[in-house]
């Protein structure tokens, strides 16, 4: 089956899930055409070949400089109509989801969102997707063409890049038409490793503020003192994350108490993550938190309370004070990793 893979990028930098999606498409046994939209994105074509694309369709257009979903859909839908692939894959990013959704409306077909497994039944892809934040798994199919699927990141292996590998590059003209939005500017990037792409996540919960040994500066209200304590606690977590090249996560309780921004929240109403290693510090393990991280390969829990539900999910646990264990773990890991 002719398969197209959309290469999602932010300002010319591909998200790793784009390459994983090429791998996912190849695992279905089809030749892969990567489709790349943007301005000055030739380097992405080269990378797409190296990650396994057999063909690249590339549209370079100044109206595609900023990702605007309407503009991208206006460009992509006619290309897909003309080439008529049976399968169109996107990585599941917020851009990928929405672009897939709009193209599905344009082409009168459907989208299977955030898929974690695919198998072929003739020309039909039977996809598995987690629903209710992973509490259930749905098998789903799309009975129209193209079958549009967005593939969850960090599930399918990223193909080994073959330097110098190449294929057929087709540059196409697109008509972006009227795109109704203007991007006025970008805020400062949040920096650090993003939760979605992270192989390792170190998270903190309400327990991070619970260090009675610290004396907050004079004149703070109780709330301010709590946040101040939590910041000292999160500094320990950030140190460990630095050594492990990890992203920093948090429970909703920590976010709600203003210890850390919402962007760091893991869980059913935060980010759903699946790193290789998830270290939960001072997190009780409420069902909404577990829903966001249960698919992590190895879970480590550090918690004072031996009955905390998080231990039921964890491979390794330490019953103790995170303010003592986390800095000691940072030192130990630093030594083992030769840092």
């Amino acid at each position, binding site marked *: 089956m002719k398969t197209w893979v959309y290469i999602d990028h*932010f300002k010319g930098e591909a998200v790793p899930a784009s390459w994983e999606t090429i791998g996912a498409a190849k695992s279905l046994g089809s030749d892969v055409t990567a489709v790349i939209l943007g301005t000055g994105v030739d380097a992405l074509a080269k990378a797409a070949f190296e990650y396994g694309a057999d063909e690249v369709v590339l549209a370079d257009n100044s109206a595609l400089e900023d990702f605007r*979903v*309407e503009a991208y859909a206006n460009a992509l839908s006619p290309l897909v109509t003309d080439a008529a692939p049976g399968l169109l894959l996107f990585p599941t*990013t917020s*851009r990928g*989801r929405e672009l*897939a*959704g*709009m193209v*599905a*409306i*344009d082409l009168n*077909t*459907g*989208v299977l*969102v*955030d898929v974690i497994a695919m198998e072929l039944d003739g020309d039909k892809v039977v996809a598995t997707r987690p*629903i*209710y*934040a*992973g509490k*259930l*798994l*749905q*098998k*789903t*199919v799309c009975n129209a063409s193209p079958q549009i699927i967005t593939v969850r990141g960090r599930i399918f292996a990223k193909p080994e890049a073959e330097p110098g590998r190449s294929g057929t590059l087709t540059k196409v003209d697109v008509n972006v038409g009227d795109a*109704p*939005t*203007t991007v*006025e*500017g*970008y*805020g*400062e*990037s*949040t920096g650090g490793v993003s939760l979605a792409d992270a192989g*390792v996540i170190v998270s903190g919960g309400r327990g991070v503020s619970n260090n009675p040994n610290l004396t907050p500066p004079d004149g703070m209200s109780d709330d301010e003192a709590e946040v101040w304590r939590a910041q000292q606690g999160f500094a320990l977590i950030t140190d460990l994350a630095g050594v492990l090249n990890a992203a920093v996560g948090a429970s909703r309780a920590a976010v709600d108490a203003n210890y850390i921004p*919402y*962007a760091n929240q893991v869980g*059913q*109403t935060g980010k759903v993550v699946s790193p*290789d290693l998830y270290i939960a510090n001072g997190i009780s393990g*409420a069902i909404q938190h577990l829903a966001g991280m249960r698919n992590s390969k*190895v879970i*480590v829990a550090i918690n004072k309370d031996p009955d905390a539900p998080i231990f039921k*999910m*964890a*491979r*390794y*646990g*330490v019953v*103790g004070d995170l303010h*003592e*264990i986390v800095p*000691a*773990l940072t*030192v130990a890991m630093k030594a*083992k*990793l030769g840092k």
Partner: protein
Amino acid sequence: MKIVVCVKQVPDSAANLVAENGVASWGDAPLVINPWDEYAVEAALNMGGDVTVVSMGDENAKEALKHALAMGCQEAILVSDPALANVDTQGAAKALAAAIEKIGDVKMAFFGRQAIDGDAGITPAQTARVLGWPALTFTASIAVDGDSVKVERSVEEGRQTVSANLPAVFSIVKDYGEPRYPSFMGIRKASKAEIPLWGLTDLGIEAPASVVEWPELNNPPAKDVSVEIIEGGSPTEIAEKLADKIMAEKIL
């Protein structure tokens, strides 16, 4: 200014979901308004217009509508039709777009970022596409000036400022600010509200073809983890043992 907010009724986020004979069951856990949609209602109410709340679903969905009425929405409409019972997101977008058009003169249509049952997160963008309106999704703040609007979007790579003209579709994220609680007066008013029901004939559309099917629903494979508690000695000794275990997993 006429404003619409779309809300969905879903099982509580604390519900224990199990697949029973291929159907999702949440025991006696309550159905609630989708938590993301409370942020959408909050944003809609802050725009200072007449807010109509719309939900597509069965009779149960009236409870989500009443919650939004109790928060302060003026009117509620239940979009309900047997032919919409198992519709996919494309179908939902078409039905919601038709309802928005029937309400007429709508300048802003608010959505949550995702429904916590199906976890699709694409209905706002798809509804915008059907309407031909800009999709200002993942919005954390909104400034309206006449017919133009500027929003701050909260996306993976950080904040982004985007402008567009109304009418437009918005999806609202948590950064927008906490939703208000229903007031006592609001709850009383909502409990007495008459909620009109719009079927496909009222919407003036054919049953949208539902091309996505979900033939199977399963419980995730049981994770057989039994936790190994690392203990004995000082924090340094415990950390040393834990570090060895982590290294032995060969994932770093």
